[in-house]
């Protein structure tokens, strides 16, 4: 799935959060959007997800974004799980919404939980899991949904360094494996360079940099 954004504007009330933003995400690419807090990174994701009204154009595979769709999954920084559902039933949820039969969605959810290393925690409620584990459940849920585009909003922002590193590895592996187009938002430059095929820096005029260029700059 490819995304073409041109002249995007989003405003809550009078002051615009985003104005005249243009960028492009190619099929199968992992694009990192970096920038300081409050520069509109999350708003950009919410607009692409179809959660907020916008001006300008967001084309996903050539079609303008209108409303939400299961093809465009959003991964939240934290607390995106429904607290009254167990880990397993949270992962099953997108499939349940699509009307997938119970047995099928159960085996799929179990497989994804296993993939993110949470076998044995199927019956745990979110409050019984650590922050890192909850984010892994959220990731499993997003993957079970099988979207064409994954939008990740600082998903590891609240995690400790070690958990964060293992999650980054996992995300990078799984998303590349499945060839899922991804927009990954972070304010952490290291994370941006590590994960992105390409990095776009928001705020103070958009800067579009290739990973190699950044690496060269960092190493110099």
């Amino acid at each position, binding site marked *: 799935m490819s995304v073409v954004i041109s002249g995007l504007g989003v405003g809550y009330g009078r002051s615009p959060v985003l104005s005249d933003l243009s960028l492009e995400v190619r099929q199968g690419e992992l694009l990192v959007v970096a920038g300081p807090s409050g520069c509109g990174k999350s708003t950009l994701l*919410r607009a692409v*997800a*179809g*959660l907020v009204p916008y001006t300008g154009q967001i084309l996903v595979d050539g079609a303008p974004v209108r409303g*939400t*769709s*299961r*093809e*465009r*999954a*959003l991964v*939240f920084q934290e*607390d*995106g*799980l*429904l*607290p*009254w*559902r167990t880990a397993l039933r949270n992962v099953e*949820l*997108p499939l349940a*919404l*699509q009307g997938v039969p119970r047995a099928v969605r159960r085996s799929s959810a179990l497989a994804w939980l296993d993939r993110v290393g949470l076998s044995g925690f199927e019956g745990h*409620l*979110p*409050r019984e899991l650590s922050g890192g584990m909850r984010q892994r459940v959220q990731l499993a*849920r997003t993957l079970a*949904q099988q979207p064409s585009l994954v*939008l990740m909003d600082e998903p590891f922002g609240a995690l400790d360094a070690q958990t964060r590193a293992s999650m980054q590895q996992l995300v990078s592996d799984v998303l590349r494996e499945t060839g899922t187009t991804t927009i990954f938002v972070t304010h952490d430059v290291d994370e941006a360079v590590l994960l992105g095929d390409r990095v776009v820096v928001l705020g103070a005029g958009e800067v579009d940099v290739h990973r190699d260029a950044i690496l060269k700059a960092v190493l110099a």
Partner: protein
Amino acid sequence: MAGRWVLRIGSLVVGLVLWQVLTATDAEVWLRFSQLPTVVEVAQRFGEQVGGADYYRDLGNSLLRITSGFLLAAVLGVTFGVVIARSRLLGDLLQPSLEVVRPIPAIALVPIAILLFPTDEQGIVFITFVAAFFPILVSTRHAVRALPTIWEDALRTMGGSRWQVLLRVVLPGTLPGVFGGLSVGMGVAWICVISAEMISGQFGVGYRTWQAYTVVDYPGVIVGMITIGLLGWLTSSAVELLGRRVTRWLPREASA
């Protein structure tokens, strides 16, 4: 641990002994304890009543009234609460009329209930319903409005429809708040069912208690009061227990 239980039961026993002593000695210390029955008289009266059929018919009557009124209030209170909180159009349409009626104590509706309904029975259920309806409505409305938007956003980006959001996020997510309203609703429902029975009932614990007073059967009055207390405690505990079961996902202290 054992020491605390001794203290708790001990305080109850002391209360009962004090009651017995004050009433048996016809004490007059500004309050006229001479007018009240003794613990022993009340216990005897309780024994007689529990052995007879009338007691259970009254219990059954009151319980039927409270459950019909309360269930109706629960269903409609939650429905209206959700609708008002989620739909601006229906909110604008319904809320003004409801807000006008809300401050009126349900028991003040007794004359209207008598005029409006063909039978006293329906009138009493109506009063009970009105009493429980508003706390449930208001708690539900607040709970829906206070719901974190992230859960709804999550469901929508999974492709969930408006209806699926309602069933899978709004209803389960508001249960803790709804049960707060149900607990309060059950309390005021008892106040109102008993008062309505005292005013216009035939049979029922409230009716029987007032009846006992008018025929100078004071131990009977106390038996009625204790029965009402027990019923109230039982039904509130049932609501509380059900609430705990369906909101087990809430963070809770291990000892609670």
